[in-house]
């Protein structure tokens, strides 16, 4: 079972690296917002894999807070961009 957790963690790390590349390359604020949201989702997934590995669920509150923060941050950033564009 340890091998499965290791493979899962490796794949998630690779995905996080790819989304970081998109975050750095950018081509616009909205692309970066999307990439950051994906990155935070991957952090949530990786934390859950760690919880499953240790069979200790005390990080559930942390995971829920991260998911909530990702949503609020991305939505407010998208609203801000839209407001700026419509005033042009």
């Amino acid at each position, binding site marked *: 079972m340890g091998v499965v957790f290791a493979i899962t963690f490796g794949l998630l790390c690779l995905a996080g690296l790819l989304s970081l590349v998109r975050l750095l390359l950018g081509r616009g604020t909205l692309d970066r917002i999307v990439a950051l949201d994906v990155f935070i989702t991957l952090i949530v997934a990786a934390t859950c894999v760690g919880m499953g590995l240790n069979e200790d669920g005390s990080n559930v509150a942390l995971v829920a807070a991260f998911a909530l923060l990702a949503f609020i941050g991305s939505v407010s950033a998208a609203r801000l961009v*839209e407001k700026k564009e419509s005033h042009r």
Partner: protein
Amino acid sequence: MSWLDLFSAVCLIAGAMSCLFGAIGLLTFPDVAARLQAATKPQTLGLVLILLGSAVHLELRYASGLILVGLFQALTAPVLAQLVGRAAYRAGSVRHETLDTDHLARRIERERGGTL
């Protein structure tokens, strides 16, 4: 390795693959609308599968919290996609030649006609 472990292993690997495909799509797709597609659907599926795979190993009270997180992600991903997609359209970073139909153009035209 019991049946529960096997189920968990399949869920974890499939979820991680789905997350990886989403990230590859995020990197390679051409414009914001297409990247949004890659960022929401495979990511949500991957996260739900990983939550399912790791919830098997936890106690019941923690596993119910994970189910809540999955439900929350499934509810918020479409809202975010809608908002970012609309902002991208108005910011002009959607390629119009790749669109099949464009319902928003008529509406924006009408709004502009009403205000001017």
